[in-house]
C-alpha cells in the first residue's frame, strides 16, 4: 500500500472507532451463528444446573401461590419490554437496558435465570437480538453471571449499610459491566488471537465494545436506582407481594 492509502485506512479506522458509540448497542448479545458448535454446547451445559434450579423454584412458587406465577409472567414481560425500548443516551445511539440487574434485585437469581432464558428466546425471535445457537452463551452472561454479581453486591452493600441509592446503582452498573466482560471473554475464548492468545483477544473485544458499554452501564445503574426508588414510593403493596420488602 502507498503512504496515502495507509493514511486513508488509519483515518477511517480512527473515525469508526470514535463513532462506534453511534451504532446499535444491542452488541451485548452474541449474534446467531457466531460461536463454533462446541462452544454453543459447552455454554448451554454450564447454564443447565441454574435453569434446573430455577424451574424447581418456580414450580414450588406456582404450587404454593398460584398468583405468583402471573406475577412472574408480568415480570418477564416487563424485562422484555424495557430491554426492547430505547433509553436516552449521551451519544445519541440506540441503547437498551438489560434489566437483569433489576430483576435479580427484585426476584433473586434462580427466577431471573429462567425469566432470562425465556426473554432471550423472545429477543432472538421477535427482535432479532441474539440467537438460538448462542442462547447458552447469552444466557450465561446475561441471565446468570450478571445477575449473580448484581445480587451479591446488593446483599453485601446492605450488610455494609451503604446508602440504598448508591447500593442499587452500584449493583446494577457493576452487574452490567460484568456481563459485558463475560461476553468479551466468551468471544475471545472462541476466537483467540494469533499472537497473544485468549488474553490479547479479550483486550481487543473489550476495547471494541467499550465505547458503547461503559456509558450504558452508568445509565443502567441510574435507571435501576430510579425504578426502585419510584416503586418504593408508589407501589409498596406490590413490592411486599414479591417478597422484596419483607427482608428490609
Amino acid at each position: 500500500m502507498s503512504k496515502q492509502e495507509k493514511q486513508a485506512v488509519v483515518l477511517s479506522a480512527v473515525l469508526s472507532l470514535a463513532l462506534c458509540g453511534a451504532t446499535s448497542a444491542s452488541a451485548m448479545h452474541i449474534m446467531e451463528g457466531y460461536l463454533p458448535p462446541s462452544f454453543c454446547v459447552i455454554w448451554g451445559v454450564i447454564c443447565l444446573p441454574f435453569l434446573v434450579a430455577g424451574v424447581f423454584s418456580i414450580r414450588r412458587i406456582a404450587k404454593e401461590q398460584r398468583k405468583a406465577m402471573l406475577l412472574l409472567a408480568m415480570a418477564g414481560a416487563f424485562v422484555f419490554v424495557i430491554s426492547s425500548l430505547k433509553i436516552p443516551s449521551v451519544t445519541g445511539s440506540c441503547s437498551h437496558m438489560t434489566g437483569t440487574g433489576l430483576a435479580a434485585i427484585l426476584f433473586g437469581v434462580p427466577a431471573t435465570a429462567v425469566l432470562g432464558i425465556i426473554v432471550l428466546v423472545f429477543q432472538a425471535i421477535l427482535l432479532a437480538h441474539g440467537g438460538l445457537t448462542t442462547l447458552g452463551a447469552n444466557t450465561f452472561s446475561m441471565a446468570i453471571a450478571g445477575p449473580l454479581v448484581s445480587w451479591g453486591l446488593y446483599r453485601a452493600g446492605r450488610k455494609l449499610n451503604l446508602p440504598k441509592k448508591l447500593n442499587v446503582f452500584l449493583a446494577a452498573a457493576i452487574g452490567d459491566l460484568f456481563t459485558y466482560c463475560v461476553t468479551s471473554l466468551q468471544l475471545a475464548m472462541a476466537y483467540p488471537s494469533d499472537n497473544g492468545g485468549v488474553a490479547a483477544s479479550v483486550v481487543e473485544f473489550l476495547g471494541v465494545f467499550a465505547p458503547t458499554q461503559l456509558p450504558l452501564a452508568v445509565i443502567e445503574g441510574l435507571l435501576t436506582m430510579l425504578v426502585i426508588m419510584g416503586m418504593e414510593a408508589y407501589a409498596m403493596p406490590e413490592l411486599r407481594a414479591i417478597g422484596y420488602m419483607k427482608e428490609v
Partner: protein
Amino acid sequence: MIVAVLAGFVMFSLCVGTLPTAAAAALCVLVGGILLAFGHHSHGGVLVIDVYARRSRYFAWSPALKTACCVLLLLLCVASASPWVPLVLALILALLTVCGGGIHLHDYLALLSLPAAFLLLSGLALLWDYAPAADGAVAIPFWNGWLVVTAAAQVRARLVMARALGAVSCLYFLSLSTTMPEILSVLRRAHVPSVMTELAVLIYRYLFVLLSVYQSMKDAAASRLGYSGFARSIRTTGSVYGNLLATSFRRSGACFDAMESRCYDGEIRFLEREKPVTLPAALLFGGLLAGTVACMMIGGA
C-alpha cells in the same frame, strides 16, 4: 451512516491482499452504499417481526416442520467448514423469505442491519491484531508495534461471518413465517418443562398489554416536556419504568381474579389451529436439507 462506513472498512480489511486493491475498494463502496440506503432499524411500540410473520405466505405451513428444519439448517450452517455453504444458503433463504414469503426487501434489509452492527464491530476485533512485527496483508504502525491483518485472520473472519450470515437467515426464515405461540406449542410437544412454556405464553400475551401502557405513559410524559434535556429524560424514563412495573403487577392481580373465576387450576390450555404438513413444504425443506448436507460432504471430502 456509521454502520455503512464501518461495513466498507471491514469489507476492505477482509479482501485486501486476496483481491486487487481496486476490486476490494469497489466491493467496500458497494456494501457501504447498500447499508447506507437500507440500513436503519425502527424502534417503537410495535413488534414488527410478529406482524411480518402473520402476513407471510408461509404462515399456513406446519409450524413443527418449519421449526425442526430451520433449527437443523442452523446447526449445519454453524458446523460448516467452508464459507461458501452458509453464504449460498443465506442467499437462498433470503430469496425465499422475500419472494416466496412476501416480505418487502427493504424491511428484510432493515432487519439485517441490526445484527450487522455486532458482526462489524466484532469483525474488527477478529481481523486486526496487535503484533510486534509488521507481517500480513495490511500493517499500520501503532504504539511501538503494529496493527496487522494477517491472511489467517482474514480466512477465519470470512468463515465466521459467512456462518453468522447463514445462521441469521435461517433464524429470519423461521421468525418471519412462524409466530411465537406456534413455536411455543412446538416446544411444549417437544417436552420442554410446562412451567417454562406456560410462563412464556403468558409473557407473550402481556407484552402487548405492557407495550400499549408504556406508549400512553410515554406520550403523557412527552406532552408535559418530560424528555427535554438529558438529565430530565433519564429521570422521566426511570419513573415511567417504575410506574410500568407497578401497573403490570396490578394488571396481573386483575388477570388472576379473572382466571380464578373461570376455574383456573394451575394449568393453562390453549386452542391451536391444525396445520398439517403439506407436500410443497416437505419437498422444499427436504431439498434444502439434502442439498446442504451433500454440499458439505463434497466440500469436506
